[in-house]
């Protein structure tokens, strides 16, 4: 007898599973390809952690020692891998501790999704235990944020979060989930987000502007390129190299553009900006066409805007329309992802060499070499200099390591002297200048690029801002290499005090602990070096170590970083001493 009925047939059609909101969060992360996340548990996020326990073979949760560490680790992971970094925290203090990392990711365009627990929705606004308005707090520093109060919102909102974080100009997204939404159940289906009607990640490419740009470049006598992280974020490194090589145009980088092009490439003329190289800074004010690619004319790059490249026709390749004419007027704006716009540009470019113009960069480099670089690298007396340490790392890494730097003098030295053959190798806090960034970022970087050597170069000040992450290194056994350039000073502030505040060293001298004992307390191999003759061996030992390694180098105490464009000065008034 036929028993099949219409209602019976219906049962087999839609494939959904009933899960808790907390489990849905994990399932969403897996759908988005997340294999590693960084976080710290607490009351309001406990249901999600309970699910993480069940899914621990599929997703690696790294317990950092502070939520700020979780954000920087997620950033380090994102910067080397190109994937979205994920950080998780509880409500209240857990959420507020994410703020610095979120602000850092916002200003440096790093794709990151932060998930915070929130008190139950019936308690919202009651000043409940560990309640803070993290949506209100994070609004100005996120690309997008959203509070989930119903379990069924979770799949769609998390899909949007990942889409927004990684598309267009990337950035941080914060999703706050009330505890009741984590406990409640929903029918789980997942659909990746492919578009949002009010959000246009990629501006339309204007072919006539591109043709104008190509004309200007082809007719330029003294063109110069300044490239930023946009080249890396757009995955346009190879295309960019072809543009540079075909056009023969000298290319200088911003701190976040570093490693988008090999540092030893003959057309790579060094860094622009406050502690950048002599040639590209001076010649910014001599070039006839300035081609800015995926950069945003930060004040540390431009110095005094009234005296910045006024003689030049400015062409600005940029994905974010709000960056056009924000700081520097673009005579020819070229909107779009550089991996598309440079492809079209390349077709229109005429081969050129610009040899005489390129020689000018070489001449300025020689001046800088004689006045600064030679001494930085080959100091013969006094204590070890910071650049000597970087140079030794280069000799061991052959330019293949990821260098994660913190903020201050050592950062400028690391960026000036590090050699890079590969892209996504320079991880540093550029826009926000977050001291304490490097140690946790290095953890994330090593996990995001496990086959590469990751060296964190940190000052004695910044190191102590997130020093507790040594605990994360100990627990996860992540083999990062940590170099502290210890001058027992907050060196960059001290340099400014020396140059602009008549040597009044207000609160910049550091009385430091025994860093070796601290590292050993976490069972991390540690060594201190203070004599030049021991440096090579110590760096080599660190670079060859298969485990995490801590190297403290006692460096010259009152070394200054030059060249320098003092604040308010023009880039061409860069000081060599």
């Amino acid at each position, binding site marked *: 007898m036929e028993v099949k009925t219409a209602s019976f047939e219906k049962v087999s059609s839609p494939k959904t599973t009933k899960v808790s909101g907390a489990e849905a969060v994990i399932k969403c992360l897996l759908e988005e390809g997340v294999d590693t996340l960084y976080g710290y548990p607490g009351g309001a996020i406990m249901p999600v952690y309970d699910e993480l326990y069940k899914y621990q073979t599929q997703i690696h949760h790294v317990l950092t020692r502070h939520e700020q560490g979780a954000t920087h680790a997620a950033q380090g992971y994102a910067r080397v891998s190109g994937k979205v970094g994920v950080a998780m925290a509880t409500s209240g203090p857990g959420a507020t501790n994410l703020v610095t990392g979120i602000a850092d990711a916002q200003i440096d365009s790093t794709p990151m999704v932060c998930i915070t627990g929130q008190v139950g929705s019936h308690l919202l606004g009651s000043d409940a235990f560990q309640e803070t308005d993290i*949506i209100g707090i994070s609004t100005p520093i996120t690309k997008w944020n959203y509070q989930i109060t119903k379990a069924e919102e979770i799949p769609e909102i998390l899909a949007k979060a990942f889409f927004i974080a990684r598309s267009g100009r990337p950035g941080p997204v914060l999703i706050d989930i009330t505890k009741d939404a984590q406990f409640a159940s929903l029918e789980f289906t997942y659909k990746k987000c492919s578009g949002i009607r*009010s959000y246009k990640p990629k501006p339309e490419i204007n072919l006539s502007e591109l043709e104008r740009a190509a004309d200007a470049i082809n007719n330029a006598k003294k063109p110069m390129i300044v490239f930023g992280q946009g080249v890396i974020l757009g995955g346009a490194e190879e295309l960019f190299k072809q543009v540079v090589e075909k056009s023969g145009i000298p290319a200088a980088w911003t701190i976040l553009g570093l490693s988008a092009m090999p540092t030893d490439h003959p057309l790579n003329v060094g860094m622009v900006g406050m502690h950048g190289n002599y040639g590209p800074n001076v010649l910014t004010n001599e070039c006839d066409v300035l081609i800015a690619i995926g950069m945003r004319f930060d004040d540390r790059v431009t110095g005094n805007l009234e005296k910045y490249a006024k003689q030049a026709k400015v062409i600005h390749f940029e994905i974010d329309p709000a960056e*056009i004419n*924000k700081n520097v007027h673009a005579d020819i704006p070229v909107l779009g992802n550089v991996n598309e716009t440079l492809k079209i540009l390349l077709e229109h470019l005429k081969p050129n060499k610009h040899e005489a113009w390129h020689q000018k960069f070489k001449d300025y480099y020689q001046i800088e070499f004689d006045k600064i670089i030679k001494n930085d690298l080959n100091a013969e007396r006094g204590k070890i200099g910071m650049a000597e340490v970087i140079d030794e790392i280069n000799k061991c890494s052959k330019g293949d390591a990821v260098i994660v730097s913190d903020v201050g003098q050592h950062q400028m030295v690391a960026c000036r002297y590090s050699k890079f053959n590969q892209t996504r190798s320079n991880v540093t806090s550029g826009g926000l200048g977050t001291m304490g960034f490097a140690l946790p970022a290095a953890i994330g970087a090593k996990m995001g690029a496990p086959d590469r050597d990751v060296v964190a170069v940190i000052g004695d000040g910044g190191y102590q801002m997130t020093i507790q992450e040594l605990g994360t290194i100990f627990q996860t056994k992540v083999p990062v290499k940590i170099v502290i350039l210890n001058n027992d000073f907050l060196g960059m502030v001290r340099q400014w005090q020396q140059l602009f505040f008549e040597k009044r060293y207000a609160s910049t001298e550091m009385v430091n602990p025994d860093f070796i004992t601290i590292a050993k307390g976490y069972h991390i191999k540690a060594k201190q070096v203070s004599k030049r003759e021991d440096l090579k061996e110590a760096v080599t030992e660190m670079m060859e170590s298969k485990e995490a390694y801590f190297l403290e180098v006692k460096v010259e105490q009152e070394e200054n970083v030059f060249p320098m464009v003092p604040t308010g000065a023009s880039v061409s008034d860069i000081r060599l001493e």
Partner: protein
Amino acid sequence: MEKKDFTVSVYTENNIGLLSRIAAIFQKRHINIESITASRSEVNGVMRFTIVVQVTEDQVKKIAGQIEKQIEVIKAFYHTDDEMIYQETALYKINSADFVEDLNIQDFIKESNARIVTVTPKFFVIEKTGKRHETDSLYEKLKPYGLMQFVRSGTIAVTKNEMPISNILEKFDTTN
């Protein structure tokens, strides 16, 4: 560049927190908002913010760019006064005794094309819609009689030019 009044019109999704996201853009630049109004717009489900600020054109251009960059903002425009038809509404609450006794007040109301909204034995509420100087002028006239309460709305404005919001949304629907 000279500072003047600009009206920023922002079309957005209707979501919690968007007001504070937009306001934060002014706050970050240390710019005071002269008036702000939010309401539904001509497009179903789309909100419209009308924000008046006194800034330079260079500033307002950048602000509109930063606002438009927000995920849930569909479009942001800025206009000068002469590119818009704009109005404000003011309510004046006055003592009924004063109103009945003093014929001047009745004249002010007639002359200024104001409207009586409510009459009770204790107070009258008068409404005036117009330009800022018109509501201000009635305010000055009524003030000597002891205004019990006064309130004025933000500027609301429609542009002389077309606002192609529906086209933008349709374009998204056809390309996605």
